[in-house]
């Protein structure tokens, strides 16, 4: 007789997804990892996990491609199928949290792409009720910005920002995906006030970025994996819309706490294209 499946519902970015498994330890790991994001909302999607023998986390590239009605998501350490029509999918992976995080991020990236949102390789935080995003090449200072944040700043993430469109622009949500800080973000959201591409320098300075350059930088930092022209077109449209509706600037900063004064005083408008 098959063991009964147990379920944990995890809500990231306002999208509740039910994860089920017949392995109690895996469910415990999942509940622990996403502790601030567990939800009692009715799930929009369901993902069944079947655990396989331990395979080390893989460095190989993930492949995400369409096969009929389903998405196939594959990497050395996991295989997943997801049908966006039924909202259901199955995952075969071993019980390591890195594979789990990868599957969850990819699934959210597919859902968001359809809805005009995206995951961005960026830190984000709420300051005075507004969300600010900090992106840039590795080592540019994303984690530094979060470490320098004053006590009244709410950290949404130091690694992967979660963005959805709204009537007035875009909203940033907290995520459990932690980077160097090894600390999950808070489960809350705020309207996005600006996206800064970081560079470190001798003094603090905020510069305009031409819209084409802003799109170029944005696209380089969006997490997107699907080999699908329709979704890629949608993503490019979303990136251009984001640039049109959200101020995007280059922030050169000297790494001390005064940079947050610049953020608080920033009053930018989007470059409408």
């Amino acid at each position, binding site marked *: 007789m098959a063991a009964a499946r147990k379920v944990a519902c995890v809500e990231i970015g306002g999208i509740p997804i039910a994860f089920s498994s017949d392995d109690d330890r895996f469910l415990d790991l999942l509940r622990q990892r996403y502790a601030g994001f567990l939800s009692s909302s009715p799930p929009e999607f369901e993902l069944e996990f079947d655990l396989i023998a331990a395979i080390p986390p893989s460095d190989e590239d993930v492949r995400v491609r369409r096969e009929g009605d389903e998405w196939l998501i594959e990497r050395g350490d996991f295989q997943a199928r997801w049908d966006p029509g039924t909202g259901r999918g199955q995952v075969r992976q071993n019980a390591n949290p890195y594979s789990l995080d990868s599957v969850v991020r990819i699934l959210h990236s597919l859902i968001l792409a359809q809805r005009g949102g995206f995951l961005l390789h960026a830190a984000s935080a709420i300051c005075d009720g507004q969300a600010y995003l900090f992106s840039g090449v590795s080592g540019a200072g994303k984690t530094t910005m979060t470490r320098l944040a004053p006590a009244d700043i709410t950290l949404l993430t130091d690694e992967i920002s979660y963005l959805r469109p709204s009537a007035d622009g875009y909203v940033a949500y907290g995520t459990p995906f932690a980077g160097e800080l090894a600390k999950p973000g808070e489960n809350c959201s705020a309207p996005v006030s600006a996206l800064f591409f970081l560079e470190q320098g001798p003094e603090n300075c905020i510069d305009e970025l031409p819209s084409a350059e802003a799109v170029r930088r944005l696209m380089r930092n969006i997490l997107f994996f699907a080999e699908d022209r329709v979704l*890629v077109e949608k993503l490019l449209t979303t990136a251009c819309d984001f*640039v049109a509706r959200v101020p995007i600037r280059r922030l050169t900063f000297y790494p001390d706490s005064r940079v947050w004064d610049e953020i608080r005083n920033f009053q930018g408008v989007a470059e409408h294209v």
Partner: protein
Amino acid sequence: MSENCIYIARSSAIAARALAGEMMVMNSADSTFFTLNPVATAIFQAADGRTPLREIVRDRICDQFDVDPEQAQADAEQFVTELSGHGILLVSNHPLVSETP
């Protein structure tokens, strides 16, 4: 690339969007992203699979940009070679059916 008659067409695997005078192109097969300068954008937009590259350079580049025809042809062939290597353009010695509108 030195064939007498080269035809170029845009791949069906790409998404493209013009913004502020530049063309943004993304290959859905591997998520690589390119931005094209105005000259490259003119060639890309004219890549209908039916017009020889030589005509594109003559009508769309030399007429609109102040460039030497021979240099423009050489630059265009290099550009086409690069983009075909990334799966953005299809290249043939015969007319092609463009894969995108």
